[in-house]
């Protein structure tokens, strides 16, 4: 009976009912919407974190150098997911690619014992193309089983490794086996390398265990960073160091620790790779805070209004209450009837409010997603393309080139990171670009110009202005010279009335890449005697840019076999600088 009376009262007093429901609905809707937005913002922040790769870069200023031990003291192992270090030119330094490697262990086909290959003391090298490693190139080493390593052959999902015969024999490893490395932190629980090849040395010039294993350069770059601790006490000067960190907080902690440890900010700067992240996360944090404030304010004010309104409504029913009591209804029943009325209105308005709040929040969150997260989409590239992982600072950087000592003209060339080499081709290494970019800073008066020397399998396939075969017919052709092509847009292209232009390889930049483990290599002076004749131009392709000189692959190999150190620890990089003979 009471319930029936309550329902009848709600229906017969529609304005009072609707007003109460509307007020409660508004309050519940606002609170619900702000709570949903608050929650959604938290999700968005974590989603944003997942979309970004956080790279802290330490870049020495000018000619100052920073010791790796100094940097590593400021980093926690668990914060570093990967790193890429370019070591400054110094005796004892190892090339950048190699720094990044960490030897995988041998799983030994599911046997319990884990064997750590780096405990064997075996060299371990990262290469883009094994066939271009001198020991393979000159025939001292050959693949016995399986295949070699090429940059294009690497899938990006599974690491490959080519191991020496002695290792295969010692542990019974075959092609197809997987060597694994366990990591104790982060999402990279395992680092696996599939054995794709086993090589052997035809002439043993070293102790067997000194013959290295090889992995793709890409994997080396992706390797986890905690091996940095190995360098804690080593005095290695760093040209540049990039650390992929475990979140934005890790970067802030890095900077804080660096300050506490007296890191010399006069000598080097620490840069966060993505200011866009800060801006986006700040926007989300603002919305997050606004949602929380709105929720709290409405909760306090709204509850106040609701309580006041409820009391007011009860007060307006006093007369009715007295009347019903005088008619013989007990006080308990009268109160129950009023409570039931309130409960019905509250339930309706709360249901509607939560429902409406969800959709309102959905709308707000869609806006947040569209306006904030969509802008973060661009950063997916950082995650998906390893190339971006390693050049957080140099993306879209232009290199200043002064042409000749007369500085008649200068131009900027955009760094092209998308050069990738196919089988038997060599692209321009991104490390080269990084290094050149760093090296050139503040060196405007240098006469040499960084131009990458790039070999291609078949120049006939290139759209060139003069075919090499045609030039071979020329009486001036000598087969011991190097002949190359430059972009048709290059300032070094032969003029119309010239048969060719002549440039020299300069070893300055190259030294930094081929100086290994304290060995002395040929001097820059000797390297500078190597001529390259530019005999024609090519149309820019996806493999070549204006800063490339194309050589036939034979010439390219010859160039490096003549001027490279020839130890098994040679890390193959392709860089050269050219200058005109006249200016020399």
């Amino acid at each position, binding site marked *: 009976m009471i319930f029936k009376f309550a329902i009848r009262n709600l229906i*017969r007093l529609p304005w009072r009912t609707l007003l109460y429901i509307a007020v409660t609905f508004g309050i519940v809707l606002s609170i619900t919407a702000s709570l949903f937005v608050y929650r959604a913002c938290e999700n968005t922040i974590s989603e944003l974190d997942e979309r970004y790769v956080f790279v802290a870069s330490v870049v020495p200023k000018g000619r100052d150098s920073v010791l790796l031990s100094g940097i590593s003291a400021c980093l926690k192992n668990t914060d570093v997911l990967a790193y890429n270090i370019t070591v400054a030119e110094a005796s004892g330094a190892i090339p950048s690619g190699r720094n990044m490697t960490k030897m995988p262990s041998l799983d030994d086909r599911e046997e319990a014992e884990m064997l750590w290959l780096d405990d064997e003391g075996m060299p371990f090298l990262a290469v883009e193309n094994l066939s271009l490693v001198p020991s393979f190139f000159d025939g001292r080493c050959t693949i016995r089983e399986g295949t070699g390593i090429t940059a294009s052959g690497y899938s990006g999902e599974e690491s490959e490794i080519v191991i020496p015969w002695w290792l295969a024999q010692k542990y019974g490893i075959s092609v197809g086996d997987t060597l694994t490395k366990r990591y104790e932190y982060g999402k990279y629980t395992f680092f696996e390398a599939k054995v794709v090849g086993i090589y052997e040395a035809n002439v043993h010039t070293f102790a067997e265990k000194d013959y290295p294993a090889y992995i793709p350069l890409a994997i080396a770059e992706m390797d986890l960073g905690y091996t940095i601790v190995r360098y804690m006490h080593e005095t290695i000067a760093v040209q540049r160091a990039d650390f992929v960190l475990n979140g934005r907080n890790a970067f802030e902690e890095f900077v804080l620790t660096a300050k506490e440890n007296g890191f010399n900010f006069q000598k080097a700067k620490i840069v966060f790779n993505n200011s866009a992240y800060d801006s986006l996360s700040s926007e989300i944090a603002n919305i997050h805070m606004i949602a929380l404030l709105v929720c709290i304010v409405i909760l306090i004010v709204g509850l106040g209004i609701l309580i006041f309104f409820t009391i007011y409504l009860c007060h307006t029913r006093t007369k*009715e209450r007295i*009347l019903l009591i005088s*008619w*013989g209804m007990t006080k308990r029943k009268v109160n129950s009837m009023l409570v039931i009325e309130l409960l019905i209105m509250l339930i309706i308005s709360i249901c509607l409010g939560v429902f409406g709040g969800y959709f309102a929040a959905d709308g707000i969150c869609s806006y947040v997603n569209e306006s904030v997260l969509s802008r973060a989409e661009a950063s997916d590239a950082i995650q998906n393309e390893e190339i971006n992982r390693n050049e957080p600072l140099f993306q879209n950087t232009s290199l200043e080139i002064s042409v000749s000592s007369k500085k008649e003209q200068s131009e900027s060339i955009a760094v092209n990171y998308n050069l990738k080499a196919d089988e038997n081709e060599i692209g321009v290494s991104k490390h080269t670009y990084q290094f050149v970019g760093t090296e050139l800073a503040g060196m405007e008066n240098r006469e040499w110009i960084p131009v990458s020397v790039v070999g291609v399998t078949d120049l006939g396939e290139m759209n060139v202005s003069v075919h090499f075969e045609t030039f071979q017919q020329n009486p001036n052709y000598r087969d011991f010279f190097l002949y190359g092509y430059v972009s048709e847009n290059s300032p070094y292209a032969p003029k119309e009335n010239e048969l060719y232009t002549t440039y020299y390889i300069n070893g300055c930049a190259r030294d930094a890449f081929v100086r290994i483990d304290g060995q002395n290599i040929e001097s820059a002076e000797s390297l500078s005697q190597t001529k390259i004749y530019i005999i024609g131009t090519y149309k820019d392709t996806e493999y070549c840019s204006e800063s490339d000189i194309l050589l036939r692959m034979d010439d390219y190999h010859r160039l490096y076999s003549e001027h490279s150190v020839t130890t098994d620890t040679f890390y193959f990089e392709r860089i050269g600088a050219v200058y005109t003979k006249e200016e020399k």
Partner: protein
Amino acid sequence: MGVLQLKNLSYDYITKAGKVHALKEATATFESGIVYAIVGRSGSGKSTLMSLMAGLDVPKAGEIFYRGESLHSLDRDKFRREHIGMIFQSYYLLPQLTAVENVELSLELAKYRGDKRKRAEEMLTLVGIKREQFKKRSTQFSGGEQQRIAVARAIATNPEIILADEPTGNLDNENSMNVVSILIDLAHKYGKCVIIITHAAEVAERADVVFKMDDGILFTQ
């Protein structure tokens, strides 16, 4: 033995000004079929007396007997529901209900076993409300009509005692006389004990017995 008997009834309450003795040892007997008027100036304790007689409040001293049985031993809500019909000065109808629903509601509360709608319509007809007006909201009636509906509601459960607190207070002379006539008829024709609290002399004149209240003391005129 009367239908309602008051024996040395006293009531007091505390205000900021001090203790107020609203009722001082009131003694009276009310019989069926008689119209009683209790007159007195404002604040003389008339409404307090009515609350006590209706069982809305409990006396501080003395007792009220319904047909010889003390109200202390009775369920006062049930007593009010079944034996008392109350009429107020401000009509006191539920605005959200129609005329017939207002009457019907008191029947529902009293758990009337017959046809509630029929009984309600009879009562409304009895007090002179036309059939076509039955389903109008109570707020759509004039003051006199509303008071007549209130009378219909009060007598619907067939109570033996009808307590009317200033039933003509808000009515014009003609409507007042109509309502008083209905109440007199209820006593004389239907044998109800009608107790009218009023300060209107013309209403008191038509009552069979007149009590006067002065400063909480009840005495016959």
